[in-house]
């Protein structure tokens, strides 16, 4: 099986001139299709930086970073924007647009993909919300939803376009343990159904069990890479 994400000798620096500081050191990582990988480590270890590089939010500087067969190292802004469309991004905050209803928010995840008609987008978005258990909240504004519900809308938005890769940055950090659990279980089920790969950054020890593999980062280096026994 060929890896969907393949990272070789990736180095990354922040700042310019004397303030230039290396944050990633020779990172090597391969993630196969369908894998759920959790990345942990202390804050400031470079987890989020790595995630933003994989997601195309930042331009990779040196080394090799291939996502879905496309080299992102040295890619231009336009290529990065296009590359982002293959990913579903889930953030710590739900980042839903508060002037849009749940349904409209999810529809924003589909609008980028030109082959769908308005009616198709509508039905797919509604079906996705149904799937995350919010079928009766389609026309609610984010302000009228609970934290867990908002995060579920955000997951629906990220997954509605059936992305190959889902990137999640501490998706449970703002949630209580029960909603947090629900949210990751939901991600796991949906990912398995759609056959997508998940790279999830977290501090939350309670959700580690959903992973196929756990990688640990410290001071910009990958220090652990352990495969969990299939449950």
């Amino acid at each position, binding site marked *: 099986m060929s890896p969907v994400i393949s990272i070789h000798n990736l180095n990354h620096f922040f700042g310019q001139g004397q303030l230039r500081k290396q944050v990633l050191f020779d990172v090597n990582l391969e993630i196969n299709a369908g894998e759920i990988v959790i990345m942990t480590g202390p804050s400031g270890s470079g987890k989020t930086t790595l995630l933003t590089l994989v997601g195309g*939010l930042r331009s990779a500087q040196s080394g090799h970073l291939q996502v879905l067969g496309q080299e992102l190292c040295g890619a231009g802004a336009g290529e990065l*924007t296009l590359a*982002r469309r293959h990913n579903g991004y889930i953030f710590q905050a739900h*980042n839903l*647009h508060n*002037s849009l209803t749940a349904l409209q928010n999810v529809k924003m995840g589909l*609008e*980028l993909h030109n082959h769908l008609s308005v009616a198709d987008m509508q039905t797919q978005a509604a079906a996705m919300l149904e799937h995350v258990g919010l079928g009766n909240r389609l026309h609610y504004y984010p302000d009228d939803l609970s934290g867990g519900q908002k995060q579920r809308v955000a997951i629906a938005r990220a997954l509605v376009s059936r992305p190959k890769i889902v990137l999640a940055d501490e998706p449970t950090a703002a949630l209580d343990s029960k909603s947090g659990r629900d949210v990751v279980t939901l991600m796991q089920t949906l990912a398995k159904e759609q056959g997508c790969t998940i790279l999830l950054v977290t501090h939350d020890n309670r959700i580690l069990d959903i992973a196929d593999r756990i990688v640990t980062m410290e001071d910009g280096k990958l220090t652990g890479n352990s495969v969990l026994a299939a449950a």
Partner: protein
Amino acid sequence: MMGWLQTIQRRTPLGWLQLSRERSRLLVALSGIAFADVLMFMQLGFQNALYDSNTKMSRALDADIILVSPQARNTQNLSTFSRRRLYQAQDIAGVKSAEPFYSNVITWKHPDTQKETSIQVIAFNPDRPALNLPEVNQQLNELKLPDQVLFDRKSRGNYQTALTKIDQGQVVATEVERRTVTISGAFALGASFGSDGILIASDQTFLHFFPKRDAASASLGLIHVKPGYDAKQVATELDAYLPNDVRVLTHQEYIQFEESFWKSESPIGFIFGMGTGMAFVVGVVIVYQVLSTDVNSHLKEYATFKAMGYRNQYLLAIVFEEALILAFLGFIPGFVLPIGLYQLAAKATALPIYMTTVRAIAVLILTVIMCMISGAIATRKLQSADPADMF
């Protein structure tokens, strides 16, 4: 083109949704735009009233060709030229008649209050009607009596009592240059920026008012062309024939001459132009404030859209969509309010201020440009919506 339309159809109308969710912000923006529009409409309205009212007298002149002194600046400052030129003009084949017309500004006593105010006196031979005003031409016989005048009922100032008396046929007398004059009738023309009102007198009465003027110094020469002759061509011939101490203009050229004086040589055109510009700038600032606040409060969402793979243009389009919506919505109250204000101003100033389609379209275009400039400045804030730095 089709693809473009489809994109519009598919697109979630984010700009509109954002604006309509934030009612109070929308209201502030709309009242700001309406305010700027009202200011612009008032400035442009006054400016237009100025041009209209100052050419009203010129328009009413009954002539094909007009002779005027090269020193003339406008209807209130016509200077004079020799009447001899009018006799010379009759040498030209196409000229039917050439009559002198006199004009000057005088101080008279208000018939009701006896206070002194200045008023423009125009005069001509009552046997030869010089104005295209039927109301005046019916009363020309009255003017043949010495010191009888016709009074402009639309003059600026409160002449209510005097006008009522005139309409009832009573004699209203007042004083001009220590002479008692009788107002024997009224007509309607309207005040202008240059004069508060107009008195029409016979040429003989005029010379009584201004003892230093003589009949041989005309302010204007009104020339009628014989049927079958072209005014433009006769004017060219006259111009070649007469010495250059007199200017030959067709009636239309004379109106333009008067208008261009107010447009360029008086400061008033500039003042109102500047007022319009100021209103425009105020509008830009208000709309910018609203739009940049809106962009700022949605930065996180915008960064998320970028992370999802939306291009920067998509976000720019949202801001410009908002700007356009604001322009058109704000224009509605900005258009309706001035209609009422014009009526108020017209009553208060006796100037012909009214809404015109051309002006409405002009202000609408200005409003759109105004909102677009604000939008363009507000989009600079979008640079900071960078998902990599934000999360």
